[in-house]
Each structure stands twice: as C-alpha cells, then as structure tokens.
C-alpha cells in the first residue's frame, strides 16, 4: 500500500486509516460531522497527496490539451489560471475528470484522480504521440487542501515569503507559484480555500503548522459529504467511461464553441445532443427517515433512475443524494430503501455553497406517499 508523506502524522493524530485506491488514507480523525462543519464554518485540511499530478511540458502543450480535454484550455486568457475538464474516450465516456493548471505556454499541470492513475498515464501517453510534449508524474510533490471561510487567512502566514504577497489578490481558480510550491484557490468542498502542492519533504512541517493554529484535520468521509453537499461529481460514481459529461451535469464544462477543435469524444457528444441526452444528474433530499445510498433505485412518473452517491448531509441534517434520472421535469420521486419506497424531493445541486443552503426544502411530505 502506498503512503503519503503525511502518513505518520495521521497515525499520530489517531486517525482511522483505510485503503483507498491503493493508498493508506485517513478516513476520519475524530467525528466526521465535526470535521465537515469545521470546513463549513472555520477551516479544515485534507491530505490529498494520493491525487495524481502530471506535468505536460513542451511547445505542443496547448495544442495537445485542446485535443485531449473536452473543456478548452484556450479559454484561459492568462497563465496561472486553472480549468476543470473531463477527459473523454471516442464514445464520449469519461476516462477521468481533471483540473488543468496553466503555468506557461509550454507547461501545464494536470491533477487527476488516484484510482485512475495508471489508465490516465497510458491514455495520455498514447494520445500524445503526435504532439511535441513530454509527460511527467510529479510524485515528488505532496498536496494539502485547506478549505473553509477562514482557511486562506490561517494558511497565508505559513506559505513561502514569495507567495504570501501573490496570494492576497488571488482570484477563484487562479494560482501562484514559487520555489516548487503552488497555491491554487481551488477545492472540492464548496468553500473558499487553497489546494497546495509542495515538495514531499516540506509537507509535514506545513501540516503541523496548520494544526498548531487550529485548522481541523479532515478525512475521506468529510471530503465525501462536503463534495456531495457542494454538488461535485466523484469519478467512478456520477462519472465513468459509459457516461458522458452531458449526462452527469457537466455540459457547461464541454467547450463546443470552436468548430475546428476536434477534441477526443467531440463527435460522440454532438451525436448525443442531436439524438437527445438519455440521463440527467439531479440532487435528492429524503423526505422520510432513513439514509439514501449509492445503488438505490429511483422511481419517477416518467421512468426509473438510480442513486450514484448518497449519504447524510451535516448541513441540512437530513439525507441527500446525487442521482442519475431519465428526466429533469419532476419535483418528487420514490427511492427504494431495503424494500420500502420512500419519498424524496428532486432539486438542482449544489445543496450548499459557502456555508449557505442553496435549495428550497419542500415541506410537503404527504401528497405522493404510497
């Protein structure tokens, strides 16, 4: 099992450790609900060093990424900006979702998932053979996400001096770099904060400094409930190689504007648009006692769907889910939990952003009960 540079610190903090995508990672340190709420109301930090970091260097970098990714890196008007995108196969299915960091004309960094590391590497290398690029894993870097309304303020003093000035004016989805450190105003929680990349050997010192000033360490459970509330997809759940970005709420990340940009999967997506999209991503809020879970069946007036991620929302204090549905038109559905059909409200994610509940929770719980 692979270990991040922070592994011994997680053990020292008494974290419950779990194997995740071949890595030994913290599931939780204390209470996952407390960890979750710390991020919503104060600041929490996550060891995300298991994520895959790949640098794309060379004069063909922009041209290559415009071919490789469904979103268009040419949308980035200047360096030091990041872009979220799906990486598709020829059928329009999602090989992975990535964040592309535009460092300069001949240098990008991709952050991709942990579980998809080997297949991404093979795929990217295979697609790159006609382009002037070199492709490099950046396993020399660790990655720590510090998230929450107070996260940036609590972090700034611990950054290298050269970064401290730059980060003050950092816009969302922008980043700054110095001495092998990268501080990006990105994240996976729906709160403000940073994702920091830094040399492995410097990561423990930063983690301990943040711990010292009261940033709550958070495990994978809180990471999952936070991203679900924020309405972010998780690769392998909402997204996989048989689902296109149009079918899982990511249409706005597909750039079809330039007709001559023939990115991988484009013609399949255009066919889907012409024929009609089969699946839609929605949010659900359970209107009865119980907990929504991945794999549960969803019944609507117009057909059936299923839950792709489910669990408990500490902010809403009820169970929420992301689901794959055959329609967008309906407001309510039934979900099968252990053989019983229970009423759920259908909403448009996100459920929560910047500490605030973004959806109107239905009070009508009786009408369509079976």
């Amino acid at each position: 099992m692979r270990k991040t540079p922070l592994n011994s610190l997680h053990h020292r903090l008494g974290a419950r450790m779990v194997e995740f995508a071949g890595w030994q990672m913290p599931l939780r340190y204390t209470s996952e609900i407390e960890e979750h709420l710390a991020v919503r109301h104060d600041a929490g930090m996550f060891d995300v060093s298991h994520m895959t970091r790949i640098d794309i260097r060379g004069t063909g970098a922009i041209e290559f990424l415009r071919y490789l990714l469904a979103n268009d890196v040419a949308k980035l008007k200047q360096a030091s900006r990041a872009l979220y995108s799906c990486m598709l196969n020829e059928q329009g299915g999602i090989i992975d979702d990535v964040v592309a960091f535009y460092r300069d004309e001949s240098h990008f960094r991709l952050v991709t998932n942990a579980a998809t590391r080997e297949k991404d590497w093979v795929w990217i290398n295979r697609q790159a053979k006609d382009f002037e690029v070199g492709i490099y894993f950046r396993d020399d870097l660790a990655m720590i996400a510090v998230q929450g309304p107070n996260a940036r303020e609590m972090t700034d003093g611990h950054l290298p001096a050269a970064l401290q000035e730059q980060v003050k004016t950092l816009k969302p989805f922008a980043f700054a770099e110095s001495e092998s450190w990268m501080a990006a105003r990105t994240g996976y929680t729906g709160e403000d904060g940073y994702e920091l990349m830094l040399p492995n050997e410097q990561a423990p010192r930063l983690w301990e400094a943040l711990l010292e000033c009261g940033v709550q360490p958070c495990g994978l459970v809180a990471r999952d409930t936070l991203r679900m509330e924020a309405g972010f997809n998780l690769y392998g759940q909402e997204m996989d190689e048989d689902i296109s970005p149009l079918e899982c709420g990511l249409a706005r990340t597909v750039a079809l504007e330039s007709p001559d940009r023939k990115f991988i999967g484009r013609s399949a997506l255009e066919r889907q648009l012409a024929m009609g999209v089969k699946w839609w991503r929605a949010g659900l809020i359970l209107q009865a006692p119980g907990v929504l879970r991945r794999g549960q069946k969803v019944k609507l007036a117009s057909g059936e769907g299923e839950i792709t991620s489910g669990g408990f929302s500490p902010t809403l204090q009820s169970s929420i889910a992301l689901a794959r549905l055959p329609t967008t038109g309906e407001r309510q559905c039934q979900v099968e939990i252990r053989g019983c059909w229970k009423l759920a409200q259908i909403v448009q994610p996100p459920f929560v952003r910047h500490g605030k509940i973004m959806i109107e929770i239905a009070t009508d719980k009786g009408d369509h009960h079976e």
Partner: protein
Amino acid sequence: MSDVPRELKYTKNHEWVRRRDDGNLAVGITDHAQEALGDLVYVELPETGREVKAGEACAVVESVKAAADIYSPVAGTIIDVNQVLADMPELINENPYGTHIFILKPQDPAAWETLLDTEEYAKLLSEES
C-alpha cells in the same frame, strides 16, 4: 483498544447483550462497532412484538458513511425498543454500552450463557485488528 465491560456478553457481529434482573436481554452495539461505523445518523428499530431467530437481522444502524445490520443474539421476542434513538442516534456513539437498541425476551433463558464472554470478545477484536 476498545472498551469491553465484564458484565456483558458479546456476539461475533459486535453486539453486546446485558441480562437484566427480569431475565430479558438488552442489546446494543459495542464500542468497537460504533468506532468503526463513525457518526451514527439513523437507527431503524424493530417492531415490538416481533419474533426473531438467533442471528436474524432485526435492526439497522446507519452512519454518515455506511449501514450495518443488527442481528438478534438469541431467539426470542422483541418486547421493547429504545425509541429515543429515532431522534438521537448519536447516543450510541456517546455511550455505546449505556444505549441499548432493543429488549429481547429470550425463548431459552440459558441461551445468554452461550454468547461470547469478555475474554472471547477481546480475543476476537485482537484477531480482527
């Protein structure tokens, strides 16, 4: 190491069983079980009056991350449930051995003796870890 009180019996599914003065059995989940599940957010209680076999799934505890069945340790009848858990499932995290899920009237009063004792359960835990 999790807490394993001496006056209780245990099952391999991580339930604890307390024999009360009236001979009925209170059933809950162990410190190890609540610790493994994490913050509990929902408990599905059995119906009072239900007859259960030994090892029959009769309640469900759900945490933020996972759901787990609770099995009846011995055959008998559910005579009471801990209704407070419907609104406060977190009591199990806070006080696992003081928070029962249901009360069982055992078919065979001697069945309790066949459950794991403290040493046997502690051994099971050390083998699992």
